[in-house]
């Protein structure tokens, strides 16, 4: 069977970013400078710059700026230092991974779970084959299980042909989390590796990660997710050459000589996960706050059971008296093992009545529960090297579903079971989780940043006292220091993608906030692994609206200024014009993504 991604099989993942002590010191110095200048700027904004004649506009904007500044403090703390968890040799026996010596020491046992629902069977076959090819330097008991929530005979047949175990169930309660839980009840490995249908693990994954579990407090190891099918685009020289012939090539080459290689059509959905895994998650190791993201993670079974028990206890705690007695009746010990298994199963069904309807939030929620435990002090590890490859969303609908799951799931926890104020977490962990939640709330102030230039351009009302020297004397040092700080802090990665993606995905964030506040039940289709055909302009109308309004506003303001009508100043026009241009460029990436189609192989 031919898949579009077969042309990318030769690709190899990038190495993790190398840590440089000098580079880190430069970043920290610039970050501190940026935060001090930022505090000075925000203080000045509140005390000396507000246009009180237009408080309806000036106040929301300064509140938005203050919220963004608070987010900047959290993000700076997140990125402060890289301290990888020490790697240790892979264990030979399970006893090396436990605090207490086991009754019977034996080789390590690992269950590899490949969760599937409706993905193409042949695609899952590729994942099965890669899972079977996992190697280990010592004797090990590795079992591969296909967890099919689609109850497909064809999938069962593929599993049989590949010689791996097939697990299914007669319902889809709990979606992926329920699927995994069902498989856990039927398996016994010391460790569990979670894979999605498209997760193609590398042979070295266990050899490189099981060593962390020699520390008996390590609950799980998350490895970076790497999308090997992200379009690479073509260079500007070639792109212009195709359109304008030799003059185009010359022009492209001249631009690229000055600015370096520029790729057109690269990563249309700004999916590149390196910023998230190699920077954000990796630098949480120092706070013991890296959280699980599902696929390509390895879990200690004992820790997973711990989370399940805690969740179950919480469910009982929250349940009404009637529910409580029903649950207690279900889990009381029974003589008949079959009856007990059935009761446990029923209790597990009851457990689905927890507030966590978004299955994707199970990952981060489980991490929080582990981190919160004050007696056991579980640890989480972000392993810096890529140990698997997977497929990226290939159309805007899939991308939107995925982002909405992340946002909705995380905000659901924040609004309904906020771990930041609950007991258990260390200060560093609280701040890191707050950073995650705060970033999703960012849609609220991003809307203000997108609308502010439009309001000025349409009305001539500035939110600041004036766009003169005093304003720039306060704003410019902060903005420049901030850019230079993040140049150093994310050295080796493009910061633009993250910035654009954050700004342009504001409709998803708003929708998630609205849904969670209303406690709306949201049905998630499984994220498709193959490209969905269609035009997705309906998904980007807010971005398109911002672009059109900004352009119209600029035309209007320029016309008024030219005719001497209204209160427009040249300074205000330039400042807001450039701000609006920045917004248009950010929005345009999402609008272009709506029309993106892969090139024919």
């Amino acid at each position, binding site marked *: 069977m031919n898949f579009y991604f077969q042309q990318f099989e030769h690709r190899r993942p990038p190495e993790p970013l190398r840590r440089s002590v000098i580079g880190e010191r430069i970043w920290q110095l610039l970050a501190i400078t940026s935060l001090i200048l930022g505090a000075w700027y925000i203080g000045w904004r509140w005390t*000396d710059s507000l*246009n009180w*004649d*237009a408080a309806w506009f000036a106040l929301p904007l300064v509140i938005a700026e203050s919220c963004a500044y608070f987010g900047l403090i959290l993000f700076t703390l997140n990125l402060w230092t890289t301290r990888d968890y020490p790697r240790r040799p892979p264990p030979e026996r399970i006893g090396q991974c436990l605090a207490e010596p086991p009754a019977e020491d034996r080789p390590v046992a690992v269950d590899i779970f490949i969760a599937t629902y409706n993905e193409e069977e042949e695609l899952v076959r590729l994942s099965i084959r890669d899972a079977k090819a996992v190697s280990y330097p010592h004797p090990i008991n590795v079992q591969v299980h296909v967890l099919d929530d689609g109850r497909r005979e064809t999938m069962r047949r593929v599993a049989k042909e590949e010689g791996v175990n097939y697990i299914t169930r007669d319902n889809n309660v709990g979606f992926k989390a329920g699927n995994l839980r069902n498989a856990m009840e039927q398996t016994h490995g010391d460790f569990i590796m979670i894979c999605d249908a498209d997760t193609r693990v590398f042979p070295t994954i266990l050899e490189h990660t099981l060593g962390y579990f020699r520390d008996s407090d390590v609950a799980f190891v998350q490895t970076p997710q790497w999308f090997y099918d992200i379009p690479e685009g073509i260079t500007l020289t070639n792109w212009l050459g195709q359109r304008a012939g030799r003059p185009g090539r010359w022009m492209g080459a001249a631009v690229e000589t000055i*600015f*370096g*290689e520029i790729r057109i059509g690269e990563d249309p959905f700004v999916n590149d996960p390196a910023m998230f895994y190699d920077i954000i998650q990796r630098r949480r190791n120092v706070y013991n706050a890296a959280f699980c993201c599902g696929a390509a993670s390895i879990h200690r079974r004992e820790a997973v059971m711990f989370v399940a028990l805690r969740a179950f206890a919480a469910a009982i705690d929250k349940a009404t008296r009637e529910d409580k007695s029903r649950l207690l009746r279900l889990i009381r010990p029974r003589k008949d093992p079959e009856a007990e298994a059935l009761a446990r199963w029923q209790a597990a069904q009851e457990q689905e009545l927890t507030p966590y309807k978004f299955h994707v939030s199970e990952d981060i929620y489980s991490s929080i529960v582990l981190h919160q435990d004050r007696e056991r002090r579980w640890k989480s590890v972000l392993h810096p090297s890529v140990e698997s490859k997977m497929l990226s969303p290939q159309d805007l609908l899939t991308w939107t579903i995925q982002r909405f799951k992340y946002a909705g799931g995380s905000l659901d926890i924040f609004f309904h079971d906020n771990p930041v104020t609950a007991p258990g977490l260390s200060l560093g962990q609280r701040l890191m989780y707050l950073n995650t939640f705060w970033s999703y709330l960012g849609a609220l102030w991003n809307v203000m940043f997108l609308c502010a230039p439009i309001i000025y351009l349409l009305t*001539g*009302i*500035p939110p600041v*006292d*004036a*766009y*003169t*020297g*005093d*304003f*720039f*004397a306060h*704003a*410019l040092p902060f*903005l*420049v220091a901030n*850019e*230079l700080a*993040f*140049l150093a802090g*994310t*050295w*080796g*990665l*493009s*910061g*633009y993608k993250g*910035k654009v993606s954050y700004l342009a995905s504001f409709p998803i964030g708003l929708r998630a906030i609205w849904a969670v506040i209303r406690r709306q039940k949201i049905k998630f289709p499984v994220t498709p692994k193959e490209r969905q055909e269609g035009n997705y302009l309906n998904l980007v109308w807010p971005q398109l609206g911002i672009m059109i309004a900004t352009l119209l506003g600029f035309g209007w303001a320029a016309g008024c200024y030219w005719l001497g009508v209204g*209160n*427009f*100043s*040249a*300074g*205000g026009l*330039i*400042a807001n014009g*450039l701000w609006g241009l920045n917004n248009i460029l950010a929005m345009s990436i999402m609008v272009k993504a709506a029309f993106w189609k892969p090139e024919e192989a």
Partner: protein
Amino acid sequence: MSWRDNLRKGRSHLITVAILLVASSVIVRIEDSALQREAHKPQPRNQMVPLRHASPDVLAADPKRERCGDVPSGRRPCPDINRRRPTD
């Protein structure tokens, strides 16, 4: 990755810094000039010289100068008034 490659990846930060510096410098000069015209002050010999480079006498003569009195003297940029307030 080489230093040059890393720098290329972070070029968006440098481009942003360059745009910020150039744009703010242009805006301040334009606003200064407009302010000079409005206040009927003699223009600096070169129209593009911002007011912060003007002599102390010129600044002292500006009746609205106190609007930026809270800015540290070392970086006192210019007379800062809201000449474009909607209520003006």
